[in-house]
């Protein structure tokens, strides 16, 4: 097991290297350059000034030199300074946004699992009934409805028309004047819409997985045996079927680890949530290479770790595929 782990971890290094190399080349090939893109077509920005700014960012050097310089820094875990005109360290920019994105994603993921899994089980148990069909329609509606559209409708209804919920942001602007209880209420009321909508959109995936894997298990012979033994249905489901049916769900947990730091741009923009999606989008638009690379490296790393994690969890849960 330990040898396997070490091997997997060692394999991650060339993989990461390849990912960064390809990303670095691709983002440098896109037209447009940092610092200048907003000043494009601005009469006040003369040619000399442009050259000066390019030299400042080191963009006058060939691309392999730039990559080497970046690599030298990144192995020391130095993500560099952002090319955006705030010129802050990339790591600071990421650090202040990760908690927001991770907590929102965690809450909605937990919601998705505690609502989605029961829906899946129910649908498998009562396959082809009206309620099964209704639930299926419901989760697919959530999956299919464009987030921004749903978000705007709910904002208009709950925010402008009923005036119950705040429309955007995470806290009211007089947050620091509130009492502890009011603060909790304030944050909660700000979170209802974004978390609700993102959870609604994610239900379809998990409930479908759950349903199909449970149906698969229910067809197995050992389930028939269990019924034949005269066990009550509840017992068959909980003791025999569910345990096995949950295995594929573990894979999904592993695969959603990188998703925790990724945010959706549209979603975050609509609710004015200063999260990772927006940061990534903005740095791409501004060709802020160090920030783009920083986010990509973290994302790639988490994806690889997530894969490894789900493999390990799988092995722990299922003795059949345990390795060495």
């Amino acid at each position: 097991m330990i040898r396997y782990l070490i091997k997997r971890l060692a394999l991650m290094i060339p993989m990461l290297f390849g990912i960064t190399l390809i990303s670095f080349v691709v983002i440098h090939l896109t037209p447009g350059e940092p610092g200048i893109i907003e000043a494009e077509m601005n009469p006040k920005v003369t040619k000399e000034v442009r050259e000066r700014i390019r030299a400042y960012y080191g963009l006058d050097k060939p691309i392999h030199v730039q990559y080497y310089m970046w690599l030298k820094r990144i192995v020391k875990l130095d993500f560099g300074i952002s090319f955006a005109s705030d010129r802050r360290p990339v790591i600071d920019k990421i650090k202040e946004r990760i908690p927001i994105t991770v907590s929102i994603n965690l809450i909605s993921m937990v919601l998705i699992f505690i609502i989605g899994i029961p829906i899946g089980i129910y649908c498998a148990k009562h396959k082809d009934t009206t309620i099964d069909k209704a639930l299926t329609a419901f989760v697919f509606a959530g999956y299919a409805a464009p987030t921004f559209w749903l978000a705007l409708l709910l904002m208009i209804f709950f925010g402008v028309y009923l005036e119950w919920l705040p429309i955007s942001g995470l806290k009211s602007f007089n947050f620091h004047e509130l009492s502890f209880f009011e603060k909790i209420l304030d944050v909660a009321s700000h979170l209802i819409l974004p978390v609700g909508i993102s959870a609604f959109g994610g239900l379809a995936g998990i409930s479908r997985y759950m349903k199909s894997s449970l149906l698969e298990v229910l067809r197995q012979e050992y389930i028939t045996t269990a019924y034949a033994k005269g066990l009550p249905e509840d017992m068959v489901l909980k003791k025999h079927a569910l345990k096995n049916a949950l295995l594929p769900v573990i894979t999904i947990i592993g695969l959603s680890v990188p998703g925790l730091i990724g945010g959706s741009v549209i979603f975050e923009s609509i609710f004015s949530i200063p999260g990772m999606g927006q940061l990534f989008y903005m740095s791409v638009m501004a060709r802020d290479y160090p920030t783009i690379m920083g986010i990509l490296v973290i994302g790639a790393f988490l994806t690889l770790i997530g894969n490894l994690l789900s493999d390990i969890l799988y092995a722990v849960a299922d003795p059949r595929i345990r390795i060495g």
Partner: protein
Amino acid sequence: MTVKHFICIIFIIFFSISCTRSKDPLFYDEKGTPAYGDTIITASIGEPSNLIPILATDSPSHEVASFIYNGLVKYDKNLNIVGSLARSWEISKDNLTITFHLRRDVKWHDGTPFTAHDVMFTYKLIVDPKTPTAYAGDFILVKEAKVLDDYTFRVTYGKPFAPSLISWSTAILPKHLLEGKDITHTPLSRRPIGTGPYKFYEWIPGERIVLTVNKDYFEGRPYIDRYIMRVIPDSATMFLELKRYGIDMMGLTPLQAVRQTDYPAFKREFNKFRYLSFGYVYLGYNLKHPFFKDKRVRQAITHAINKKEIIEGILLGQGVEADGPYKPDMWAYNANVKKYPYDKEKARSLLYEAGFKIGKDNILYKNGSPFEFTILVNQGNDVRIKCAELIQKRLSEIGIRVKIRVIEWASFINEFIDKRNFEAVILGWSIPHDPDIFDIWHSSKQGKKELNFISFENKEVDELLVKARHTLNRDERKKYYYRIQEILAEEQPYTFLFVPYANVAVHKRFKGIEPGPAGLMYDFIKWYVPEKQMRYRQQ
């Protein structure tokens, strides 16, 4: 507690929060008397990046910084140059030297007195090659800068330079906090200290920036105590926040201004202001193109385009026809230039005159090649895309086949504009407050990344542009710019389409707002909320 109870309680809480506002329809109509207090909340699509203005190229940064810093001079309501940190100034007879006499009563927000050394420091910083600023252009022309005494500052230029005076409206930075430090890594870019009417209070990344009033401001204490800029990246959300009173002020699109805010509840709580924005939209031709070389062709196209229809149909009336590079309320604007009213017949006859013949397929042909071209438009700009469609329709009526191609901004510039790989484009220019348009129209400005990308060459315009930028006498400059506009109107290197109106909604409790050619915010320190109508009170 059952779920039912819980829901009831939530409802009650939200209702009690939401029912505190006054619904009296005339409540905000009373003018009241100026009083100190209250907060204004504005919003911005993008987050400011850097509050040291010379390092920032985005408009939210400059907007916030304009409350925190002052320049030596500024524009007043009618775009006249008036003093700010400078009490007065003298311009030498040869127009080469400006001597600024600075105010003696100005203090930085940390209490240190402001002196001419700060001005000198700012100047040196901007021209320092190590400073990554986009605004060094105007200051590199300074031959010599000198501090005569603590409150007198003198600059000498190698050549008289018309925009020189207003270039000193650049934000003056505090020497005592920045000297000897690396400007790109100073904490002041996130916690600025200036001389302006508002002091920096806090910046919550991705959420908002809060400024508080500078009670000792040298032009008098501003009435409004707090300024908050919220970051709301989505314009639909921003509009909902405005309707919900989450923000007090917002620029409106034509659709929002004309249709979506035209209901009693909105009118009860908001005033709408309108002024001509500093920009125009145009159809530009690649003058190297064999068809567009002929000015009759360009004139014909201008005749064939119905500008009125564009303004009524796309801008919902929120704009005026443009016929030159300035907006009608500027001193340099010349109203008596050749006009091109919408006239299909005139357009046709001009094209026949230029050698085009109508073919069997109703398309114009010259020497066997059909008259067709592509208009490039940048992605994300709906107004321009719709303009292109209307132009396409109008030109097809006189036998010109137009294609439209929508391209992402960075490749639009790098692949098409810079490489001169286009036939026609729809783009906009912002109109500078100072009428110097040398960079856009002078024939020397055709290099890579330079702005005369349509390859316009006219000897007389070249001469006039140079003369106009090297004299400081306004009447003389006016003469030159009038003539330039006449030539541009005759030549039609662009078809000037329109100057849009800026529409701004401001909550009604704010009084003392007077829109002018300079916009709305030039006199923000005079805005006030009468005591009774104040909404946000601080402890």
